[in-house]
């Protein structure tokens, strides 16, 4: 998944704080479906305060103007706050798990790839290896491309999560 084109991102990462109540995810997902807003990825988990959860949503700003998406989201009663994480002003991360059709130790090229990205080998069987990589989406894209020649059997990525940077450029 790489929703960036020509250096100008057509995605935007929204960090949405919601009340931790039954059905909140359905409300958010239903809103996106109903209004025709496209989602690239969506991650939800509780925050340090158990009354709230945080949802990280990568939205397609070509499907609707960002402002319209934000204002419609803000109308949901259980949505408490929305931060628009500008790519330059946020730290973003994503996690990748992949099972590849090669026994790790037997292929020096594979070993080199894993080392170069500082990926972790989680498991190995006679004919496959499971690796994990945490990083920014671009690194994961590159790593995934590198894995392809070894035969990806299964892959799961989480989608971006993010928080505002502590040291904004301006």
């Amino acid at each position: 998944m790489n929703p960036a084109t020509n250096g100008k991102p057509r995605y935007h990462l929204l960090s949405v704080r919601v009340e931790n109540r039954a059905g909140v995810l359905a409300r958010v997902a239903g809103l996106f479906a109903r209004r025709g807003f496209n989602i690239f990825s969506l991650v939800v988990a509780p925050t340090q305060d158990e009354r709230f959860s945080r949802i990280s949503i990568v939205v397609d700003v070509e499907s609707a103007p960002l402002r319209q998406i934000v204002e419609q989201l803000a109308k949901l009663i259980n949505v408490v706050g929305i931060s628009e994480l500008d790519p330059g002003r946020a730290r973003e991360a994503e996690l990748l798990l992949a099972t590849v059709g090669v026994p790790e130790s037997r292929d020096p090229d594979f070993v080199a790839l894993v080392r170069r990205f500082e990926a972790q080998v989680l498991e190995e069987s006679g004919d496959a290896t499971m690796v994990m990589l945490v990083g920014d989406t671009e690194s994961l894209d590159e790593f995934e491309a590198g894995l392809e020649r070894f035969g990806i059997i299964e892959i799961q990525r989480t989608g971006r999560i993010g928080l505002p940077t502590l040291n904004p450029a301006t």
Partner: protein
Amino acid sequence: MEVTGAQALIKSLEAQGVEVAFGLPGGAILPVYDPILDSSIRHVHVRHEQGAGHAAEGYADATGRPGVAIVTSGPGATNIVTPLADAYMDSVPLVVVAGQVAAGAIGTDAFQEVDTTGVTMGVTKHNYLVKDVAEIPQIVAEAFHIATTGRPGPVLIDFPKDVANMRVEWEAAAAVDLPGYSPPGLPAPEAISRAVELIRAARRPVLYVGGGVIKSEASGALAALVAATGMPVVTTLMARGAFPDSDPRCLGMPGMHGSYAAVTAIQRSDLLISLGARFDDRVTGKVSAFAPDALVIHVDIDPAEIGKVRRPDVAVIADCRRAIEALVAALREGEPLDEARLAPWRAQLAQWRARFPYTYDVGDGSTIKPQYVVEQLRDATPDDVILVAGVGQHQMWASQFWRFEHPRTWINSGGLGTMGFAVPAAMGAKVGRPDRMVWAIDGDGCFQMTGQELVTMTAEHIPVKIAILNNAYLGMVRQWQHMFYKERYSSVYLSPDLPDYVGWAESMGCVGLRVTSPEEVRPAIEKANEIDDRSVVIDFRTDVGEQVYPIVPAGRSNDEIVVHPSQEELAR
């Protein structure tokens, strides 16, 4: 004091000042119907849940207070989905309580189980599934707060039967505290001063007045704004009556079937001031060609409406009345506006009005023209009569040929276009305003959808008057097939006398009258006006050949407005 969940619900409704609820009992809501017997709340027992929902809407539209409906689970809940969607589109404050199967049975496909919370999520401002009996007072307080503040809308409470039967120590609701909900209040001063600059500079301004002006009780403020600026006004279908039609500055309704003057004024305007309107497709026509030379000031309490359709030059996010009052105050601070600045514009508008009034072919007197019925009704009723309409040709003629002088005298289904709205909504309006005469203008197709509520009117002593403009067709669909489908009429014929509308009315305890010639129109209306102890239905046999003019064909620019054939020469 220990109470059941059902008692807690009724006490909570009473605490909100609820005087009337419209509803129909069933299995899952049974516990709630027991304490209703001991309550101060009047329960109007409808014959179909859709009727309960539209009646609650009519009540809310007529009074400005939230409408309340109570239904059972499953089919009871799904039958009220249409009114919820209708209220959501037209921003009508409703609180609907729907029974639900016992909490433990949810998800088991129990008898009369439906995922009501899930089904209604997209057609409510918010909804609740009650899980804890102790939460009931707070949920009810929140529901009313959400329904009635900000941009109003419907809220549904999904109420499991076992929770209704649990016992709890009664504790009134605390102050509502919703961390994710804070409706805008006062407008930003900078936005107001920028808006005032544009108003001062404008030479062809138009006030585009929407339903928000009525919701926020802003008619008085609007009158002051018009007095201070001399700006002309158009009132959308949702705003008819927000500004008096008798005022020469009122150009009437814009949009697909709006007046030539209103539609064309917007198209030629240099400043469009939208007050509680939402640039609906029926108003804008082709968006890219809508008001092409206009700067736009958009006043709305819902920030999501700003820029949804048209990017404004000034956005004022606030309650409409507060915003208009702030505009008037800011205008008064500066130099008085020169009345003469709008003289050429006013002359142009007057010319359009004079040349292109709403008109119809009066014919040779052998048939009843539907527009004639509307005119006669208008002239035979007091100007505070509440007029309710269904959806279709009759609705457009009612809006066009009536003369609205006051807010909350016109009730109809605008955004959703719900056929069958009129009969139950008129009933709800009469319940809310028993002091007023309530007339519904309905189509024969619409009437057949919800006409069973005549039974409720008779049983509950709610006397309203219904004029069916019976042209034996689904008239608006027929008009489109006439104009855009080469007169290939498909599934639009209904028959003038199947059903027998007079027999229908009489079988339900109402007075039924049939009118087949123009000279009988006025006497029949006057007879109906004299009947106060039950509802009256008049079956007006109207001319099927009439089309609604003007018309802007769907998806076309408002510049392509099609006027009445008799005005075509002038329009060239």
